[in-house]
């Protein structure tokens, strides 16, 4: 019995972490966030480590690793608020296409980082505003909001009937408009379809469900990393910042804020591990765990990134320290692909709590 990361997984996390710490410090993140650089650069770097293909099977040209490996990478990316299309290209698209067994020929180029596949799932989950996608033949009409990755080459699109389609970014009749959000490290866009040619991925709602579950765990892992970094920064800052002739880490109020963050966050690590493991190995718990893990991490992530900001005092509010990148990362993760309330409802519906 071993509950935790294998030595290979630790190595994987270390190698991603080392790359990000060296090549993608906050200054580099800032350049992408402020529009000076594109996230293609870091994605290419990650591609050299094989990251885009982490969930892509070896015969499809990827590393063929599992969900826990993907979670471990997601955590590292969250820790470094890395601007990269990991969630859509490396998790959502590969899981969908491989589960459906369709269009897997695309995945080789995804694994090398040559092409990116964005994800327009929101309308299959809980349609907002006047969005929604309808199908006539293999033509899509309507629109998708807050599509992940404004720079993708293809998009995986969910319809209101929970079918999945693939459309090319340059397809006739497709209009793509970036949507600016609080989160500048990852881009979203709106897609408007006017009878756009689409390729069916799956009509089985189970494929969307499985894809969604995988995405939820990856998002939770990203929040775990972001929150852990916010906590680490708060502790480090408190040990160095002096007020009233002592480091603020010596004030019981500050100590207790940090202790509360750690106490809330530490069990989340095990929860993310287990939820990722369940995706591959314990199918009967997978959806319930995925929903709970994303919902719980959303709550904890909000608490931790906010409290870490408070520990930083005024500096936490400035762009100088940049702590807000972590705050916004956790905030973004909370809202996308299901708010905590929606996911808790789904978790309830997916278990027989009482006879």
């Amino acid at each position, binding site marked *: 019995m071993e509950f935790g990361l294998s030595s290979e997984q630790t190595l994987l996390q270390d190698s991603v972490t080392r790359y990000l710490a060296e090549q993608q410090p906050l200054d580099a993140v800032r350049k992408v966030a402020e529009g000076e650089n594109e996230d293609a650069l870091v994605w290419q770097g990650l591609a050299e480590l094989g990251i885009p293909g982490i969930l892509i099977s070896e015969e499809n040209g990827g590393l063929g690793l599992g969900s826990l490996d993907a979670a471990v990478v997601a955590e590292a990316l969250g820790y470094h608020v890395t601007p990269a299309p990991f969630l859509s290209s490396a998790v959502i698209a590969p899981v969908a296409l491989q589960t459906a067994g369709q269009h897997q020929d695309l995945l080789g180029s995804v694994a090398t980082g040559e092409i990116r596949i964005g994800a327009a799932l929101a309308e299959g989950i809980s349609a*907002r*505003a006047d969005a929604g996608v309808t199908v006539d033949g293999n033509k899509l009409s309507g629109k998708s909001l807050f599509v992940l990755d404004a720079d993708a080459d293809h998009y995986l699109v969910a319809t209101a009937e929970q079918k999945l389609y693939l459309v090319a970014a340059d397809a006739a009749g497709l209009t793509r*408009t970036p949507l*600016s959000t*609080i*989160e500048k490290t990852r881009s979203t866009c709106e897609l408007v379809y006017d009878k756009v040619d689409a390729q069916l991925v799956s009509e089985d709602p189970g494929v969307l469900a499985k894809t969604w579950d995988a995405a939820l765990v990856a998002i939770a892992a990203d929040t775990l990393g972001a929150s852990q970094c916010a906590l680490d920064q708060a502790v480090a800052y408190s040990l160095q910042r002096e007020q*009233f002739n*002592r480091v603020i880490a010596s004030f019981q109020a500050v100590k207790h804020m940090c202790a509360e963050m750690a106490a809330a966050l530490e069990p989340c690590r095990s929860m993310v591990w287990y939820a990722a493991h369940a995706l591959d190995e314990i199918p009967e718990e997978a959806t319930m765990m995925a929903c709970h893990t994303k919902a719980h991490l959303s709550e904890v992530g909000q608490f931790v990134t906010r409290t870490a900001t408070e520990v930083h005092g*005024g500096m936490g509010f*400035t762009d100088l320290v940049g702590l807000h990148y972590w705050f916004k990362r956790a905030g973004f993760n909370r809202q996308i692909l299901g708010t905590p309330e929606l996911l808790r409802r789904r978790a309830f519906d997916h278990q027989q709590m009482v006879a």
Partner: protein
Amino acid sequence: MDLSFGPEYESFRAEVQQFIADHGNKSPRQGGARNKDAITWQKLLIENGYAARTIPREYGGYGAEPDIIKSRIIAEEFSKNQINTGLGGQGISMLTPVLLEMGSEEQKQQFIKPTIEGDMVWCQGYSEPGAGSDLASLSTKAELDGDEWVVNGQKIWTSTAQLADWIFCLVRTEPDAPKHQGISFLLFRMDTPGIEIRPLVDMTGEANFNEVFFTDVRVPKHQIVGQRGQGWQVANAILGHERGSLAPPDAAQTRLNGVAKLMNSETMSGEKLIDNSVFKDRLMKLQGRVLAMRCNDMRLLSARINKGQDAKLAGMIVKLQGTELRHELEALAIDVMGEIGLSYGSDNPYLRGNGSWQHTYMYYLGLIIGGGTSQIQKNIISERGLGMPKEPKIEQGG
């Protein structure tokens, strides 16, 4: 319990309403320093006693006796009719009262009139990167060189520094004195050589504040309020003014109505969010807190009117409770909107309320921290409100 202001004030209210009827059309849509319409409007307000109301006529004010109820009636009527209430800014809200209290006759003559009329804009130089909660540990220093102070150091959180003509600034003039006794309160022009302003971008993405750097800034010796080394006492004469206003409960009520409106127009999978029991319960929970703070505010107003009433603790908790409440209200709005709640930036067509939900959510987190963090507030409440002991002194090296 009597919630009316009584008949004697109703004629005053009628006067205010008449003024609004006659002149409301001149109310500028945008306020703020350097705005010509706003300055013209400000002068009209002063003339009629709706701004600078209690400032003596000799210094350019209206010269009325302080009357809290009249001030409240003015505020209520202006707010109800969405009329611009005149210029704000730290020169008017903070420096003017300090000059009236501690300034020399010459200083009052020189500064108050142009300040309240909007012709002289000020910024405040208190906080420093190393002196936040522990403001008295500030280290910007001023040394006397002949007839001039030579100022060196850095200030932070200086709003409107780019616009300001003058700064009122706390500096350390007696480095060897205990920290609260070595500070002086200087006034100087922002175009003095040696001042550099850098906009300070915050988490909202805007530069609501600045950093200000001083390098051998030379200030005439007499531009000091109070005595050398008395600056801490001078500043504290007005510090209290800032607190309560950070979290006005009426604004919270307006905001709560805004969330309800949002819930009524936004849908999730076809369901109006106002019909979602979980969000509705959260909304009502917050309304309970908003109502409690509104009632608390009535009590505070009453205690200001009726001197016998004790509302010390009720006043002390306003900032702590009010800022937290607002932060949570904005958070609910964001949650309710799901992905749409992430929108930020005027080019996003799904932006709701001009992006104010996300903006205020972050801004109020800033207010929870700023102007005395929640931790400092709790120290104050427990020590001054509940009579618990101060943080004990630490053994050196301990």
